[in-house]
């Protein structure tokens, strides 16, 4: 956009009644007065060119703005004037308050993240030969509908780590850094000497002494889970420590005595055993492949405890669409769609960063980060502002993504203004057009600063 309205003197086609002297400084009106249009037309002809646009804009954009403002001052029925009650009501309703809060989070977070990522991608792709291919990959989601993106991310956010990609990745990372429990769900027999809550820890009632074998039988492990394990061994004999065995006290096919290591019973390796004296852990050991363990002599007289970490259920991942994460989760889907937009605009802006300046800075010993921080970002500042503002307007009106990704039952937690407006005015059986109109006017008021920003930008550019 190089020319536009505002400064009529500089616009491409000046009005025919411009003063004959050119108002462009230092540029005398030439002999043929080229700034005077030969393409002169009568205003009546212009009417026909403008008529369709004016009718449509008037009936479907301008009139509705006025009507919405008017309607927002009346109650549900539309008959009683209620002043600003619909607006104050917005702040009293919990659902709408959540929507307002979520919209605020959206506007503060989503554009900033998109712009930051776009900036990083745009700068980095300049350095690789396949930058264009990369840009295509990141920009591609812009072309698809928010509905499709919503369906895509509903799949990603499915709770079951077996089905949802996000939880599959998250549990994999989680389990890499913290070992999963070796025997989830295993527990002692109710009659056993080991006692404790169902999920552990289990502590022995009796104390152990050196030379005495410590038998710690457990049950409630599925036979197929121990199929590959070694047979349990009797506690080793000898040494001045405490020897013991943890095993699955269940003999397939029946038989076998409780609390005794019978042949055919399987070992439970990898279980942590702690010796506790007066509430303090004095020693610990882990069971070997045959289920046996040896505690040092220091454990003499201690009680044995099997900590709960041995039996924790497998980590199930994160409830992405739960009350606390639902908005960040949908914002992530938005970032997936719109980071490419920021990247492409910023990449175009990068072309205007003076290369000589960057080279000169590098010669003077500036590192890449300093060049980025002191040259690239300041030069790009106007582009970054445009990207941020554009994304902010876009995010303010966010509807489809939230409506598709957030499950109906959780809609209250992930609510935003546009969704609330739709629910109030179109989804229910008794629509509240007063509240709905008030929400729409609030949305309009929120974009007003952007309107002013645009006009000023336009005037500045045409003033050049």
């Amino acid at each position, binding site marked *: 956009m*190089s*020319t*536009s*309205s*505002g400064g*009529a003197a500089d*616009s491409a086609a000046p009005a025919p009644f411009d003063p004959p002297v050119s108002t462009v400084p230092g540029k005398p009106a030439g002999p043929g007065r080229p700034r005077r249009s*030969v*393409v002169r*037309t009568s*205003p009546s*002809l*212009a009417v026909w*060119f*403008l008529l*369709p*646009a*004016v009718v449509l804009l008037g*009936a*479907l*954009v301008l009139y509705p703005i006025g*009507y919405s403002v008017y309607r927002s001052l009346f109650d549900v029925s539309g008959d009683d004037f209620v002043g600003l009650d619909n607006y104050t009501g917005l702040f009293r309703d919990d659902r709408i308050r959540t929507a307002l809060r979520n919209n605020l989070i959206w506007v503060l977070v989503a554009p900033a993240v998109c712009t930051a990522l776009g900036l990083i*991608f745009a700068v980095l792709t300049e*350095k*690789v030969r396949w930058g264009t291919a990369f840009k295509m990959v*990141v*920009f*591609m*989601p*812009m*072309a*698809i509908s928010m*509905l*499709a993106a919503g*369906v*895509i991310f509903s*799949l990603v956010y499915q709770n079951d780590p*077996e*089905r*949802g*990609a996000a939880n599959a990745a998250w549990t994999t990372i989680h389990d890499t850094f913290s070992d999963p429990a070796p025997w989830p769900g295993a527990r002692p027999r109710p009659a056993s000497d080991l006692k404790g809550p169902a999920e552990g820890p289990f502590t022995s009632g009796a104390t152990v002494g050196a030379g005495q074998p410590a038998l710690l039988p457990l049950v409630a492990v599925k036979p197929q889970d121990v199929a590959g394990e070694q047979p349990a061994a009797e506690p080793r004999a000898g040494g001045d420590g405490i020897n013991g065995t943890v095993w699955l006290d269940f003999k397939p096919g029946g038989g076998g005595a409780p609390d005794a290591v019978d042949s055919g019973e399987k070992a439970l390796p990898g279980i942590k055993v702690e010796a506790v004296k007066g509430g303090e852990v004095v020693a610990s050991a882990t069971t070997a492949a045959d289920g046996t363990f040896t505690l040092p002599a220091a454990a003499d007289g201690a009680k044995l405890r099997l900590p709960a970490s041995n039996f924790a259920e497998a980590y199930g991942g994160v409830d992405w669409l739960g009350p606390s994460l639902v908005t960040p989760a949908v914002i992530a889907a938005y970032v997936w769609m719109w980071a490419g937009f920021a990247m*492409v605009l910023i990449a175009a802006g990068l072309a205007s960063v003076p290369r000589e300046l960057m*080279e*000169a800075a590098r*010669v003077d010993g500036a590192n890449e980060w300093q060049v980025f921080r002191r040259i690239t970002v300041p030069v790009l500042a106007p582009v970054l502002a*445009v990207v941020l503002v554009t994304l902010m*307007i876009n995010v303010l*009106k966010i*509807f489809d993504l939230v*409506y598709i990704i957030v499950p109906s039952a959780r809609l209250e937690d992930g609510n935003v203004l546009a969704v609330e*407006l*739709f629910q109030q*005015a*179109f989804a229910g059986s008794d629509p509240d057009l007063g509240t*709905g109109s008030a929400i*729409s006017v609030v949305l309009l008021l929120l*974009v007003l600063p952007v*309107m002013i920003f*645009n*006009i000023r930008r336009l005037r500045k550019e045409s003033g050049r």
Partner: protein
Amino acid sequence: MTTAAAAETAPKPEPREAKDESPAKESLASRVGRYAGGGAVRAFLVIVAFLWLTPTVGLLLSSFRDPADIATTGWWKVFGDPGQLTTDTYDTLFGNEDVMGALPTTVWITVPSTLLVVVIGALAGYAFAWMDFPGRDWVFLAVVCLLVVPVQVALIPVASLYRDLNLFHTITGVVLFHTAFGLPFAIFLLRNFFAEIPRELLEAARIDGAGELRLFFRVVMPLGGPAIAALGIFQFLWVWNDMLVALVFADPGKPPLTVAVQQQTRQFDSNIELIASGAFISMIIPLVVFFAFQRQFVSGVMAGAVK
């Protein structure tokens, strides 16, 4: 080479001396740094590209799996068991009237909306660029203001207007609404593009006796090709992908694709196989348009950075 050029242009002698002192050390260190940094950058970008592709690939693979498999395991399991892939879901989809009947509706909404926006926008854009009428600049400024008006503001009033005009739940109503909200951007884009047309061209045509309409159709429209293409692509994708406007104004019994798929997601016993394949079908046309007209789309998006 570039450093030499920079040193030549350096006005003061000091930088040159500093450079001469340690050329070997500098370049070695920076080269090592560049290689290491370049490797890290490449690795980072590859990971990002992978992350960005994964969700779409996931949908594509899901849409080719058996509903029973989708219900129990993730799409990545097909890598271990390619036998899971099946076109059954698409057979179901193609046999589903609700979704397949929506495709023509989407076309009937999208194509007229795009054409109308281009034609009406071009007429007005030409008037703003080259015709003289009082208050022209102020009216154009008003159009610029309308660029950012959210569609939500018009939903309730236009719904009641359409009910009075019998346009509610009709394709015509949806088309007119999309056209109206596409116009500010169309006028803005085309007016600025048309204003760049060299005056001499228009004057020459005028001297040859071309009338206003002839000038518009024979000179301005052809010259405006690139901008019109960008606008057309942009508007096409915008309308094709829209869900909110269709949700409000389209006939719920005969909705476009986005709403049809959305209705499936809201059903009590949601048909995941229909949703996945339906969503993918709804993506195909936009993706084809995107890859075929990338440049126009990008320039449309860049010009529309205020919408």
